[in-house]
């Protein structure tokens, strides 16, 4: 074998090894990627489609990933961009809802609806898992994306800013609004329940 052919062979073998390692590491993160997808879209089926599209694109463009950087953030950047590309958010300027309710609003509402003072545990019991899922779905998408990345995906503000390609200050203000919006939606659902 000539020297050139031998070095080409080594290069190809090295690249195949890198690709396999990349794919294995990406697949190990699939549960976490799915969890974020589940928070971003409205149904389990949509989340499954989105995760499949994300992995198909990630495996095609694996060379653009820089080894040693945050693979989970890289995958979620693909996922959030695909979610935007799907046209899910036409006319999606975050609705600048008033923030007149403070952060104690939901607790106060839940306690008031009981008609008597409650222990904290009893207030928590008035929330149902289904209401939380529904309420999350009702949060405007631009706010929800940030909330899902930070509160469900455990990303730092900095990572969320990079994934969504927005300034860190925007991450913080959207997160603030998202949490308030979630509580407002939860109050509507939980307080009406007899």
């Amino acid at each position, binding site marked *: 074998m000539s020297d050139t052919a031998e070095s080409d062979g080594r290069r190809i073998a090295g690249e195949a090894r890198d690709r396999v390692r990349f794919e294995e590491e990406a697949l190990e993160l*699939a549960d976490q990627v799915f*969890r974020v997808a*589940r928070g971003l879209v409205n149904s*389990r089926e949509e989340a499954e489609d989105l995760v499949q599209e994300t992995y198909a694109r990630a495996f095609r463009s694996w060379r653009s990933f820089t080894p040693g950087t945050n693979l989970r953030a890289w995958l979620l950047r693909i996922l959030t961009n695909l979610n935007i590309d799907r046209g899910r958010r036409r006319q999606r300027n975050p609705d600048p809802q008033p923030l007149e309710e403070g952060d104690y609003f939901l607790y106060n509402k839940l306690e008031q609806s009981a008609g008597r003072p409650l222990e904290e545990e009893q207030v928590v019991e008035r*929330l149902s898992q289904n209401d939380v899922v529904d309420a999350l779905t009702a949060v405007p998408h631009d706010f929800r994306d940030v909330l899902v990345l930070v509160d469900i995906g455990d990303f730092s503000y900095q990572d969320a800013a990079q994934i969504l390609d927005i300034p860190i200050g925007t991450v913080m203000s959207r997160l603030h609004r998202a949490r308030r919006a979630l509580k407002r939606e939860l109050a509507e659902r939980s307080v009406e329940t007899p």
Partner: protein
Amino acid sequence: MIDACDHCEQLLQPYLDRVLSEEERLTAEAHLAECAWCSNRYRFEADLRQIVKSSCAGAMPPDLKQKLAALRTPLL
């Protein structure tokens, strides 16, 4: 002057996010130590975050894992 409980309410999110300055954190904790009204609401907020997190904690369907693995580039 702002009411101590109102001030504590404003510190709730940054407190749980651990982004308060040392001085603000101590202010919040001093108030929480003596105010059950606020400390209940802080505990509730921490619980709510856990509930939100677990609302998306359902495991990925096993067949999806297989579908993702099938997307890998075949080895020659």
